[in-house]
């Protein structure tokens, strides 16, 4: 177990710079999740920490030691790959033994470690199978077994659940979280699925186009997104962003939509000059059908059982609201939207920064 510090890390492939100065400190025993859209550089960052990709600039520090020049095999890190990367010509047992063999452990030590890792993951019955003889879920489990058998300083996961079906993914999410609690290990977990990050991580790093947008606990990011990108990336269904102009009202500044409707009062804590353009972020669960307020027209009604998701058009902008229980709304219905101005997130329309 160890902490990992990434300092001003830069990565270029030829002319293309894919990481532009990444700073992250991963604490000992922490479950840190890297999220961001596809192509934002998550895998590249992970591979650099693993030692699989050379560093263009900056430092990677593991356990207080700069490892920039250290080969992957000497970093004592385990990695679980998206496609599992099990050795096809080896049985599960051999797959799990390989790393220990490379370290020169004795046969007895290897057998003991493999047995205990297999017991933790319930792999005992599969030990003599080849990867091609197992389902995707079993292969995934073996890939994790291959990582934990080594008791490494740090675990790296690169979208390990993205090839599983939805049900298995939810189950494995719980298992990995439980495993982390039991092993107390440092985990850096890459995913493009914000829900995975929200449910599993102690802290989340949100990345976009090679830069870190925000670092924080899941609820931090949810409650106080630092910019409109983080706001709309974290949370499902995504946060509504309504483009508004700030105007002076009878009881203080208000947000006015493109169709000249007053969306809500500007929260009193927010200092915005009248006439400024802002993006008003409203979580779908903070938006309600009310008796009065800006008018919108229902586009789609999607019942999920416990709640109903309603998509409506507000002056040409699509907004989503989540209504508890069943809804009697239909496509084409005119509704009024109500929201609590204290729950609004206000972002500068130009820079996206939280105001």
């Amino acid at each position, binding site marked *: 177990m160890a902490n990992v510090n990434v300092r001003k890390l830069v990565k270029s492939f030829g002319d293309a710079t894919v990481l532009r100065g990444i700073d992250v400190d991963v604490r000992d025993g922490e479950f840190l999740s890297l999220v961001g859209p596809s192509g934002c550089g998550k895998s590249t960052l992970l591979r650099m920490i*693993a*030692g699989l990709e050379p560093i263009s600039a900056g430092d990677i520090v593991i356990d207080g030691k700069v490892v920039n020049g250290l080969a992957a095999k*000497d970093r004592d890190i385990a990695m679980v*790959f998206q*496609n599992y990367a099990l050795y096809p010509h080896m049985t599960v047992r051999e797959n799990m033994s390989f790393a220990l063999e490379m370290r020169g452990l004795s046969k007895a030590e290897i057998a003991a470690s493999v047995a205990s890792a297999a017991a933790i993951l319930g792999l005992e019955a599969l030990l003599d199978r080849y990867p091609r*003889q197992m389902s995707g879920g079993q292969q995934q489990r073996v890939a994790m077994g291959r990582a934990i058998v080594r008791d490494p300083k740090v675990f790296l996961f690169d979208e390990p659940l993205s090839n599983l079906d939805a049900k298995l993914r939810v189950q494995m999410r719980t298992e990995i979280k439980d495993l982390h609690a039991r092993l107390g290990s440092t985990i850096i977990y890459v995913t493009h699925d914000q829900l995975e990050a929200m449910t599993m991580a102690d802290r989340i790093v949100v990345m976009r186009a090679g830069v870190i947008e925000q670092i924080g606990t899941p609820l931090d990011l949810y409650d106080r997104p630092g910019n409109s990108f983080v706001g709309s990336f974290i949370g499902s269904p995504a946060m509504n962003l309504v483009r508004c102009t700030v105007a002076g009202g009878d009881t203080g500044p208000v947000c006015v939509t493109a169709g000249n409707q007053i969306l809500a009062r500007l929260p009193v804590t927010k200092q915005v000059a009248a006439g400024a353009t802002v993006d008003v972020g409203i979580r779908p669960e903070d938006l309600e059908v009310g008796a009065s307020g800006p008018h919108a027209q229902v586009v789609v009604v999607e019942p999920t059982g416990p709640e109903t998701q309603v998509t409506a058009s507000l002056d040409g902008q699509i907004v989503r609201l989540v209504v508890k229980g069943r809804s009697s709304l239909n496509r084409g219905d005119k509704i009024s939207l109500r929201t609590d101005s204290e729950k609004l997130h206000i972002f500068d329309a130009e820079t996206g920064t939280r105001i």
Partner: protein
Amino acid sequence: MSENVDTDLPVAAIQSSALSKRAPRDPVSLIGTISLSLIAFAFAFPIAWAALTSLKSTSSVIATRYPLTVWSFFPPHPTLENYVFLFNELKLGRHLLNTAIASSGQVLLVVITSTLAGYAFARLRFPGREGLFALTLLTAFIPLEVILVPLYQVVSGMGLTSTYAALFLPFAAQPFGIYLMRQSFRQIPPELDDAARVDGAGTWRIFWRIAMPNVRPALATLVLIQFIWSWNAYLWPLVIMQDPDKQIVQVMLAGLKGSPNYSLDGPLFAGLTFVTVPLVVMAILLQRYYVRGLMTSGIR
């Protein structure tokens, strides 16, 4: 244990369904069967003819030439005298051993050079990699006949004339082998290398423990092709091997054709028949692999 996958099952199922389909034969497959039989016959006929002739005594080899009927092909009085003569008088065993030494050396060296170079071209990053590979491929277009004389000068300059090493050393690096191995190494997902590297393996161990076991079909193909090539070599051994005792079997057999004093046609056919045996054995032993090797390299 419903997910207990038995990999042999689907193959067996396909085979049995193919068998059961055989009864009502449609015209297309009938034509296919007939043309395949004709091709098989065309290939098998000369070999079968040689094998049958090898069982004739030398006098009946000549006698059955005229008049030519279907029965000319069959030995009137089957005998093994040609084989006895071949092994006792012409020391076929000795020459077979020479060929075996040359072929083994050839196969072993080519396997080593092709896998190492193929892996480097497939996986290692170094400047000039693609250019070097293109140059390597170009050498495939230089026929042996063109470089025969300079090659002879080089090898004899090294003092290797009439040694076993001279039979295979000049052909230690084969562009075809390097190409074949490069292609199959490239089919291994790079994540396997990454996983092994993280697991603590260096380049050499990745090559040996991860890459090599996953190219076995291509390796079998390479072994077979090199073995056949070297087993059938003629021109170079004829030139470089001047010690008749160390000469390979093919050159020795060819010498029988021009025997000035009396006909050795019977022993010649016996020898020709006998030297095909190792090739057939080798092909049968390796067919499970090389068929798969050719198939997977086509599909992926």
